[in-house]
Every structure is written in structure tokens, then in C-alpha cells.
């Protein structure tokens, strides 16, 4: 009896720990659960972080250095006038449901995204498109109404992945793409499981058999799950104060990389006293960015002087334009008529970086005679309503995580209430410019205008605090786009 019990127990323990075999599964932790798995119909970044590159693929992809690389399109030509893009597609590519991928799917996907009824979060990607032609199954010709310098880059975003007419409607709950992993299951509130796609067109490229994304919002719980070995990697740890410990721990690799998240304290430019550029500059002079980063993000993060990511090749360092200089700040305030002090408020979302930054800013402003009242605001619900929609605020603070989003300062009716026609024209011009050097020069000019005009207080670039098992390789250290691309990940033993 006892022998039989022992045998059964042994058998059970063997079957319960398949980890004895070479490890080929990966568990990735994320702070926020995606609300669906279709990046082409909703905005949340978490959707892209699960699905982009892993489940869905675009005509092109953005690599870990932010460069455009071929993907479903093996090559392309651009006409000399920059208006016609001819893409040559890979053949023999199949969607996860077995249907074939061809030029018709590209036309379908882009027409669906630019339809007036579409809820695609980045419709401007498709705005320049005039027509899409499919001369044969392996060729797509896209004609533009006007030149678009970032068109190829945009096609690498999650909003422009290729979906099929047979499956698109169900993608939010049951995603079907052409990627190296297939959707297996989604336990809502807990995890999404993906398994290797045996029919993937890039044979043998991917080493992992399965990937599980687990959603853990509490930062203490994130750290506990990593330490307990429940998850293998947390590409974006939300607890900077706990990150340094992982850096010391040989079991983990902890890398502070870059994201596209510009953290800014937006000001209501239409409201007094922020309609006066001297006040805006004074507030910028009052902020010691280094000290702010130390306090708000444990020293991780890069100071910024304008609204551009240091990740981007067109980035120019503008932190010196309005440096930390409390005396200058006081002088400017006096000049603007606020020599006897000024009282303003900041609506602060509950994210740790936001509330900590606001507290530090309050202390720094006090040094130059400005009283800053902190008003905690629930994010996203209340913040979107009060600040974003109704523009009922003085100052606020939030990190803008979309890549290449300097154009938000050119948008009408955006929450900053910033109006600058020169800037607006410049951004439109830059978007049309196809010559890279010329486009970068225009972006540099735009960055300078913002740095001098200070429509928002430019604070710091959110870092990407990645922590993963030291035996894991191929994870991304930076995120030039919001992505958890695990197609190159593998275990060393």
C-alpha cells in the first residue's frame, strides 16, 4: 500500500514539474491588463504590449533601436515624388486560423482603420492615404494625397497591424494574426496565454514554446512575484525604489532603459497667469530636474527640455535652454507682476511618479514665492473628464507615452490650450517632409520653440525599469514603441 502510494506520489511530482525539461516557456509580468486584444480598435498601450510582434504583424516592424525593418513586406519602393509606396509581400504567410495572407488583407486592414466609423486610436496614420491597389496577391500599391515623412514608421505601430476580413470582428476576444505566437486563453483579471505558432512563416526564428502575460497592478506584489519565481520578467517595473535591489541581486538582470514617455507638467495656457510666457519660464527656471528625478523616480529617468524622446534619432538636448535658476525665476515673476507671490494648483493623478513630482515641485516653487496646492485626481476617469475634456485646471502632470507625439502641441483644443500658428505650420511641414535630414531639422526647430515657449514644464523621460531572470536573453532594454516583443527571447540553459 505504502509502496503504491510512493509510486503515485513520484509520478505526480514528475508530471507536476515539466520544468525538468529544457525551459521553453516564459512568464512576463505587466502592471495593467489590456481591455481587449485588438490594437487596431482601441488606444490602451497594454493591448500593444501583449499583441504587437507576438500575435500580430505589420507590413514593417520597428526594431529595438527604433529603426524601420521589413516584416510582412519584404521590400518596397517609394516613387520619386514620395506619393506612391509599392510593397512586395512575403508569400506563403498564413493567419493563425489557416487563411492565407495576401494583398487583399492589407487593403482590408487599412480601409477598415480609416473608415469614418473606425475607432482606431491613431487614424492620422491613414489620413494621407488616397487609394490602395492590389495588382496581384503579393503586391500592394498605396497612393498618398500628400507626402508623409513618417508613413513607414507609422506602419510599424500596433494600430497598423494586418488583420483578416475573416477574423477581424472577433479579434478583441480571440485574436488572429500572422505572428509567431497563437492565442491560447485569457483568464480575465489574471493572464493571457500564447503558444508557439507551428506554421509561422519565419521558420525556426522563435525559440520559446509558450508565453504567458500576467497582470499585477500592485508594485509590492510585482516584486514578490519576481522574487518567488512566479514570473520570469517584468519589462516595466512600476516601483523605482525597489529596482536598485534587483540590480544588486545576481539572480536577476535589471536594466534601466528608455521609453517614449515624456513626463510633463502641463499648464492651462489660456488661463491667467499661464498665458504669460514669463510666468511659464519662471516656473521652469524654478525646477531642478535632477533633484526631481532623484525624488520622484529614485534617480532613474532622463531630464528633458522639450517634448521629444531621447530615444528618437531626431532628438536634440534642450535642457540647457531654461536651466534651474531660482533667482532668474524670481526676477521673471516680479517682471510679470507677481513679485509678492502667486498661488496656483496642480491636479495630480494617483500614479506614484505624478504625486511625488508634484510634492517636490511644491517645495521648489515655494523657494521662488509660488504656492502650489496639490489636488489629487483619480486617473483616468476623473482626470480625463476634468483636465483633458473640460480643461478645468491650472497645472497637471502626466507622462505621454506615445512615440513621436510632439504634434499634440499643434492640435486644436488639446488640453494644454496652447496656440502657436508658427509651431503648428512647422509640425505639418515636418510631417510632409520625406527627406530625413530636412525632417529632422524641422523637428529640431519645433523642439526649440517648445523649449523657449514652455507650454508645459518639461520634466523627464520615464525610464523602462526592466527586471528579468539572469538566464533569460533577448529581452528589449529600451522601448522605442510600446511593445513586449519576445520573439527573440530564449533561455541560456
Amino acid at each position, binding site marked *: 500500500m505504502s509502496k503504491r502510494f510512493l509510486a503515485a506520489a513520484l509520478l505526480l511530482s514528475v508530471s507536476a514539474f515539466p520544468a525538468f525539461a529544457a525551459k521553453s516557456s516564459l512568464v512576463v509580468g505587466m502592471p495593467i491588463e489590456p481591455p481587449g486584444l485588438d490594437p487596431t480598435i482601441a488606444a490602451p498601450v497594454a493591448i500593444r504590449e501583449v499583441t504587437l510582434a507576438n500575435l500580430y504583424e505589420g507590413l514593417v516592424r520597428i526594431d529595438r533601436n527604433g529603426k524601420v525593418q521589413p516584416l510582412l513586406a519584404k521590400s518596397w519602393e517609394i516613387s520619386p515624388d514620395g506619393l506612391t509606396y509599392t510593397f512586395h509581400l512575403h508569400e506563403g504567410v498564413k493567419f493563425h486560423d489557416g487563411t492565407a495572407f495576401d494583398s487583399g488583407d492589407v487593403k482590408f486592414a487599412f480601409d477598415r482603420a480609416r473608415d469614418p466609423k473606425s475607432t482606431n486610436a491613431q487614424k492620422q496614420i491613414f489620413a494621407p492615404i488616397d487609394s490602395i491597389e492590389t495588382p496581384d496577391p503579393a503586391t500592394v500599391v498605396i497612393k498618398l494625397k500628400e507626402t508623409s515623412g513618417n508613413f513607414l514608421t507609422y506602419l510599424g505601430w500596433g494600430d497598423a497591424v494586418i488583420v483578416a476580413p475573416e477574423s477581424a470582428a472577433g479579434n478583441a476576444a480571440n485574436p488572429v494574426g500572422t505572428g509567431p505566437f497563437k492565442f491560447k486563453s485569457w483568464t480575465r483579471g489574471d493572464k493571457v496565454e500564447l503558444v508557439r505558432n507551428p506554421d509561422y512563416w519565419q521558420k525556426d526564428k522563435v525559440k520559446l514554446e509558450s508565453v504567458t502575460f500576467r497582470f499585477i497592478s*500592485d508594485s509590492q506584489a510585482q516584486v514578490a512575484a519576481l522574487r518567488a519565481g512566479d514570473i520570469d520578467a517584468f519589462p516595466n517595473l512600476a516601483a523605482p525604489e525597489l529596482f536598485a535591489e534587483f540590480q544588486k541581486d545576481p539572480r536577476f538582470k535589471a536594466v534601466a532603459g528608455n521609453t517614449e514617455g515624456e513626463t510633463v507638467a502641463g499648464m492651462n495656457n489660456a488661463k491667467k497667469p499661464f498665458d504669460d510666457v514669463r510666468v511659464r519660464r519662471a516656473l521652469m527656471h524654478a525646477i531642478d530636474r535632477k533633484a526631481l528625478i532623484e525624488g520622484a523616480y529614485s534617480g532613474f529617468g532622463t531630464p528633458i527640455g522639450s517634448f521629444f524622446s531621447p530615444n528618437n534619432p531626431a532628438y536634440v538636448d534642450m535642457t540647457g535652454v531654461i536651466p534651474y535658476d531660482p533667482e532668474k525665476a524670481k526676477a521673471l515673476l516680479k517682471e510679470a507682476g507677481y513679485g509678492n507671490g502667486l498661488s496656483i494648483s496642480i491636479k495630480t493623478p494617483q500614479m506614484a511618479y505624478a504625486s511625488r513630482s508634484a510634492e517636490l515641485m511644491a517645495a521648489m516653487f515655494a523657494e521662488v514665492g509660488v504656492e502650489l496646492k496639490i489636488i489629487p485626481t483619480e486617473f483616468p*476617469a476623473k482626470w480625463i473628464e476634468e483636465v483633458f475634456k473640460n480643461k478645468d485646471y491650472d497645472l497637471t502632470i502626466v507622462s505621454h507615452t506615445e512615440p513621436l507625439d510632439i504634434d499634440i502641441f499643434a492640435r486644436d483644443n488639446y488640453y494644454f490650450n496652447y496656440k502657436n500658428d508658427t509651431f503648428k505650420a512647422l509640425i505639418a511641414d515636418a510631417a510632409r517632409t520625406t527627406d530625413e535630414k530636412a525632417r529632422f531639422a524641422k523637428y529640431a526647430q519645433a523642439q526649440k520653440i517648445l523649449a523657449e515657449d514652455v507650454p508645459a514644464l518639461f520634466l523627464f523621460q520615464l525610464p523602462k525599469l526592466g527586471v528579468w531572470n539572469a538566464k533569460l536573453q533577448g529581452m528589449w532594454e529600451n522601448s522605442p514603441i510600446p511593445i513586449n516583443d519576445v520573439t527573440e527571447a530564449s533561455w541560456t540553459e
Partner: protein
Amino acid sequence: MLRLITSRLISLAVTLVLVSLAIFLILEVLPGDPAAIMLGTAAREDTLAALRQELGLDQPALVRYVHWIGGLLHGDLGTSITYKMPVSTLVAERMSVTLPLSLLAILISTALALPLGVAAAARRDGPVDRAVLVFSQMGVAVPNFWIGLLFILFFSTRLGWFPAGGFPGWEAGLWPAFQALLLPAVALALPQAAVLTRVTRSATLEVIAADFVRTARAKGVKRGATLRRHVVPNALIPVTTILGLQLSFFFGGAILVENVFNLPGLGRLAYQALNQRDLVVIQDIVLIFSGLVIVVNFLVDIGYTFLDPRLRSRA
């Protein structure tokens, strides 16, 4: 009797309709447009309008309310705005975590509280009594999410005996699922156990002082037997009442504990839905909880009339 039940059922239905209206109106005045939240800072006028139309948010409030109630009458809880799937499926999935979690917590709480409370009362002011009082004092003071955090630090991170959170699902087997639920259930149970211990202790003390116990002892019944046969059964009546009242606390506490342990339960769904302003989901969950409370009250009412004949004639 039948007339009583019918009249109670009618007032039950009226209460539920009033509750549903109240929930709907409260959510109407709560700031936060679900479509705007979905689109966040990427929102543009045209996309926002398209999404509002897709979600049916462009309809007037009255139409949406009637639509919701109409669906409920057909057993249709509606579709979640964020997950874009039937709320009934979502709720059923989450119930499979929250229900076992609460039941386990109730079991643990009762298993701890009853013996401790009786033991403390049996030897009043003795060392056991004093220890129990200290324990219950602490239990009442320390919130359950904090206990949860300590458990994770010690049992999961330090000792590695339990997962640090999450739920493998019942399909992973009974033991892994139980393992994932045990720590959160204990964290959930301890504060309630502390309250219940105090109630049991004082109820037991009250019965010990009663005449019939003195009579029993005087007739020579042994101390242990008196406790078993006379004191405990009588003390259980107030204890059961408190236990019934505690049910709602278990659900409330589940929201916090599920968040700490990252359990995909109903409490966490409610929390998430509130953050995202997933109106349909919040409406349904609040209605389900209120419905449970109202139905339990109804059953208690009916139960009392069965137990106490005097109430029957009055009705």
C-alpha cells in the same frame, strides 16, 4: 402564509427596481466618460464620437436604463464595455474564485473563533482568556490587506511555500487552486475571526451565568458536559446572527484582499470596472450584491415567521 410570502415577494421586487434605479442614477452623475477613458490622451473628436456610438453611449439615459432592465428581465446582463464580452460570463468566471475564497474564509474564521471564544469564556480572566483578548484586539485593529502583505513577504517571498499571488484556475487542479486561495482566505478571515471570537466569548459568558446552567451544575452535571450540552448550543444563536451579518464584510474585504493577492475575483472586477467606468459591469455587480442582501433578508424574515408563530398571526 401564502399571502404573506406573496406580499413579501412583491415588496422584494419593488426594492430591487428602486435599487437598480438608484445605482443607475448614481453612476450617471459620477464623472468619467467610458469612451473617453478607453481612448485616453490619444482621443480625437471623430474617434470619440465613433466609439460613443458603438458603445451606445450616445443614447439618452432613460433609453439606456430601460435597455438594461429589459435585458435583465430576459436574463441578459449586457456586454462589458472594456472587455466587450457578456457580463454574465465575466461574473461567472469571477464567482468561481470569490465564492470559494469567501466560503474558505468563513470556515477558517468560524473554526478559529468558536473554540477560542468558548475556551476564553470557560476560564474567565485566566491566561487563555487574556491571550484570546489580545489576539482579538489585534485582529480587529489590523486591516486584512496588511495581513495579506505580511503573509506574502513571509510565506511566499521568504519561505516559498505559497505563490505570491495570482490564481492558476480550477483546471490546474484542486491543490494548486487551494494553495493559491489559502493565504488570502486566512488574511480575509483573521479580522472577522477576531470579532467573532469576542462575540462568542461574551455570548458564552452570558449563558454560563443563566439560571438553567446553574441548575444543571447544581444537579451534578460535569463542567465540560454543561458547556457542551447547554452553554454552547444556546450561545450559538447570537453567534450565528453575527456570522450572517459578516457575509457582506467578506465580500467587501474580498475587494482589498483580491487586489493584494492579485486574484481574478468579483471584487477585483468591481474595482477594475469602477476605474474604467465600465458602467454595465458596475451596475450588474452592485445589483447582484444588493440582490443577495435583499434575498437573504427575505429568507430570514420568512424563517423567523416559521420559528416564531406569534409573527404569523400579526402578518
